[in-house]
């Protein structure tokens, strides 16, 4: 029997992390922003394969990295949320439980499998005006190793995170209108993007969680809607 080569756990983890980071860093960024009417998600994405999706009434999902992997996670989230909402009530489906479940699932793949998931995701939840203890929005980021963090005001994944976050840190202020939030999102994405400031409605995927809507608060904005907000 041949002896396997010894590699320290630190080395294995560091290698896996580097592998995952490389995959994610090559991609484009997604920004989630709080605005006065809820949460807005802007992705630099000119393809028809969406990176942002609806999970449940108040919860949206955004993923960067390998499409097949984060899209699979999105579907798992929809199954998780719909089953939970069906067996309890719609109000029992919350963003935090979902983000935790994602964190566990992704973390487990990172430690157990040879190849980690090359993805990073955002779970965004908009507040509910009906309940006093639930008015705040939540933004959770889960990274390839299952590390979960919660953010206020804005949250960035994928691509050139440092540049995009830097831009947001300078320009973000509370109580943005939807139009200002989209413009700021584009400005931040441009800062981290190779294509510079040329991002127009065709290169952006924009979805909102609109707290004013009843029931399902997720809406995908059409190209025209994005254009009119960018020009507003």
């Amino acid at each position, binding site marked *: 029997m041949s002896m396997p080569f010894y590699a320290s756990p630190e080395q294995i983890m560091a290698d896996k992390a580097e592998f995952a980071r490389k995959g994610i860093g090559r991609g484009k960024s997604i920004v989630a922003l709080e605005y006065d009417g809820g949460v807005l998600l802007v992705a630099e994405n000119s393809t028809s394969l*969406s990176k942002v*999706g*609806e*999970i449940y009434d108040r919860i949206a999902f955004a993923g960067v990295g390998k499409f097949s992997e984060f899209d699979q996670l999105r*579907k*798992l989230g*929809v*199954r*998780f949320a*719909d*089953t939970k*909402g*069906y*067996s309890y009530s719609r109000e029992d489906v919350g963003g935090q439980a979902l983000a935790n*479940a994602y964190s*566990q*699932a992704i973390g*487990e*793949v990172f430690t157990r499998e040879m190849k980690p998931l090359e993805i990073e995701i955002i779970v965004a939840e908009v507040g509910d005006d009906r309940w006093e203890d639930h008015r705040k929005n939540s933004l959770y980021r889960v990274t390839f190793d299952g590390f979960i963090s919660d953010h206020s005001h804005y949250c960035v994944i994928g691509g050139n995170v440092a540049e995009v976050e830097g831009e947001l840190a300078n320009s973000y202020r509370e109580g943005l209108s939807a139009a200002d939030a989209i413009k700021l999102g584009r400005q931040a994405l441009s800062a981290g993007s190779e294509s510079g400031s040329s991002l127009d409605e065709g290169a952006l995927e924009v979805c909102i969680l609109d707290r004013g809507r009843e029931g*399902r608060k997720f809406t995908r904005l059409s190209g025209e809607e994005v254009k009119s907000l960018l020009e507003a």
Partner: protein
Amino acid sequence: MIWRGNYQGSSFFELLQAEHPQLMPDLSAWSEHATGSVPHGTTVLAMRYESGVMVAGDRLATAGHSVASRDVVKVFATDSHSCMAISGAAGPSIEMARVLSVELEHYEKIEGQALELDGKANKLSQMIRQNLPAAMQGLAVVPLFAGFDIRRRNGRLWKFDITGGRYEEAEFDATGSGGLYARETIKQGWRPAMDQGAATRLAVAALTAAADEDRATGGVDLERRIFPIVKFCSAEGVDDCPEQDIEAAYRETLARRTAGGSAE
């Protein structure tokens, strides 16, 4: 993964069957002798009108010869443009409406695109077929399904039998214990280009006629102020008919009847 599920498809109904069978109890062990003890829903109807299709139902549920509930809801919006109206065993029927509405939403989220109206009706027919063993034991689910077909730009409606048989109706239909009487009334008054108000008046007249002939149908209960549910599916989505319109339509029907006039 913490979600070790093997099911990879887009159907919530199949997801429950495959991964969460405990949430879908098997009702086929039910004994026919006990059927009189569970609530049954009675009369529901659907008809096309100028801008789509209308669905209506009374509010009574009966268990044997007793009233089980006076204000049960038997008409449900299953998504933004479709409705399901139930008659038959209330428990399984209401649950089926719930599963269908999650099913439609689930499919839309997983696939990123909503089902066609035909697809929705077909899915419901499969769910009814699955219920056949329970239906043979007396727990039948006999719904009406109606919606606005966004692609064809018109309202459509379907009736079903307990085997899942699915029959599209071009004009109107009514089902449940008072369905026959409701259908007769609608047949006399139905016109293809009725507006919303005319459709409401006809539906209320039909439910009143059904309540008159069939003791298990509720009609309008002015004493307790319980009104039938009336929903409209049009290009704008599903809308509830306000109670005051239903009450006005009912008072009109009453006035006609006391004056000795016919239903329409």
